[in-house]
């Protein structure tokens, strides 16, 4: 297995399947986007985004490394190189499609130096799926986070207990708390069918260089994870740094996807959460 910066594992499509890519007890839960149910118009278009041309990627990456200003650096800015927060854990349910959203919201708050709040993506996923353990795609979770918000993990009134799918916690008090952690500005749909893979990659890379996190769905993996940064593995070779929602995986949940595996099939950019 190869490593990025000697510590962060690289998942390689052409390499052997490893315990890292598919731990025995891992849960996935990605269901490909059904465009008849979730049309292209449901999210804002990324046409406003000024794309960073590939000719600038090296300079951008070098600047991030020199100043240690990327989301990767900010995430790993805890004491002794530990993460600023422990990555979320979807545990035994196939709710990866909302954990990728929750992880992105937490990274956005971290970037803005807002108080660290541990969000619980089980809340929105359980409400959307009416308590059932069902798969989905990241846009479902993002839409709910935009319209309703996301609950805080905990057992106090208005909070949502870790890994619970029990809808008894969906109370008016909880909804009021969820509204505090809502996506205020629209999301950008990076993988509309009208765009080709190159444009998708350029958009995803631009988000990475601009420290804009977001969920990404990967059909080859049947999995949805949080996109953190567009990284240079070696000269001329680029990859997607992701934050997974599996515990004790990768380096504090981080790993790099490269080659065709780095091309996501559904991706959104979180631009603004309520302070």
């Amino acid at each position: 297995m190869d490593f990025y910066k000697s510590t962060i594992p690289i998942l390689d499509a052409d390499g052997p399947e490893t315990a890292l890519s598919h731990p025995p007890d891992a849960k996935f839960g990605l269901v490909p986007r059904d465009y008849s149910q979730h049309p292209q118009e449901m999210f804002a278009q990324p046409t406003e985004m000024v794309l960073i041309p590939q000719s600038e990627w090296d300079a951008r990456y070098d600047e991030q490394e020199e100043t240690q200003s990327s989301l990767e650096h900010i995430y790993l800015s805890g004491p002794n190189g530990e993460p600023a927060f422990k990555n979320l854990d979807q545990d035994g349910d196939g709710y990866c499609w909302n954990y990728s959203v929750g992880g992105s919201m937490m990274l956005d708050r971290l970037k803005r130096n807002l108080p660290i709040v541990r969000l619980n993506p089980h809340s929105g996923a359980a409400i959307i799926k009416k308590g059932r353990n069902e798969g989905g795609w990241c846009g479902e979770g993002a839409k709910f986070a935009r319209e309703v918000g996301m609950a805080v993990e905990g057992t106090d009134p208005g909070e949502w207990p870790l890994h619970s799918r029990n809808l008894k916690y969906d109370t008016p008090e909880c909804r009021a708390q969820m509204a505090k952690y809502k996506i205020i500005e629209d999301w950008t749909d990076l993988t509309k069918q009208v765009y080709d893979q190159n444009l998708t990659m350029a958009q995803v890379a631009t988000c990475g260089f601009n420290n804009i996190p977001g969920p990404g769905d990967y059909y080859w993996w049947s999995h949805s994870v949080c996109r953190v940064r567009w990284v240079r593995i070696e000269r001329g070779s680029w990859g997607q740094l992701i934050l997974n929602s599996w515990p004790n995986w990768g380096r504090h949940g981080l790993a790099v996807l490269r080659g065709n595996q780095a091309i996501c099939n559904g991706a959104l950019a979180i631009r603004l959460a309520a302070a």
Partner: protein
Amino acid sequence: MRTFALIGIVLVWIAAYCRPVASDEQTVHFPMSPVVKEPAAPDDPSVIHDVRVGELYVIESEEKPLLVADSREGFVSIRTLSGPLEFFAKFSDSVDRDQYESRTYNSQFLYVVQAKTAGEIELITSSDNVILKRIMLTVTVGPRPPPPEPVDPVDPVDPVEPTKSFRVIFVKESGSTLSAEQTAIPGAKAIRDYLNAKTTPEAGGTGWREYDPQQTAVNETPTMKLLWETTQPKIQSVPCMIVEVNGHATIKPFPANVDECVKILKEYGG
């Protein structure tokens, strides 16, 4: 002597039971800051901008009915009543807001606002489809938080005054693509380390933020919220940087790179 005593009793009775009617060309009366020492009302009394749980916030209209609306549901209740009415209650515009008092409101149209849930709302008063007044109202439930430090966005900083408070907000449009050097602000380690060490802590966190220009700060700490609400309307262009020292805020152009940013911050934060 008996005559003087009688006059005194009458004056006390008037003071206790009759509310002074402020001259308002809209004939809409919001609760005003109480006059403690001066017998005459100030020329331009400030409208009360907060209501606590258990208090009455009474809006009067002498001639026309009003439409009084809240911008966000669930934070206050608004009752429409017909005057004159006498209340024995706590009022938002009392000198001592913890004391019950008896008041008579003589206006025909009365609107009683009461706190339900803590938060910030806008109270909008209109008549005949014309908005008469819009005010921000802080709704407080539970113990009253300490007042935030005052912020004056235009006053310059006194360079010799010791730094008692230091806060910074970087304002960037997250959808924009800046130069590589500017994109590194404020994420760069040198900036984060400096700000984490120097800015004034509040509610367990440090006193700096990165906001979008249209950022909502409804959940923010009181001081950061006040700083943003005071300075946001004065922002001319983005990206920019807001630096607050000892209650004085300055909106500065966005630095060109990390080194320049740290240099500017050190000029303010030491």
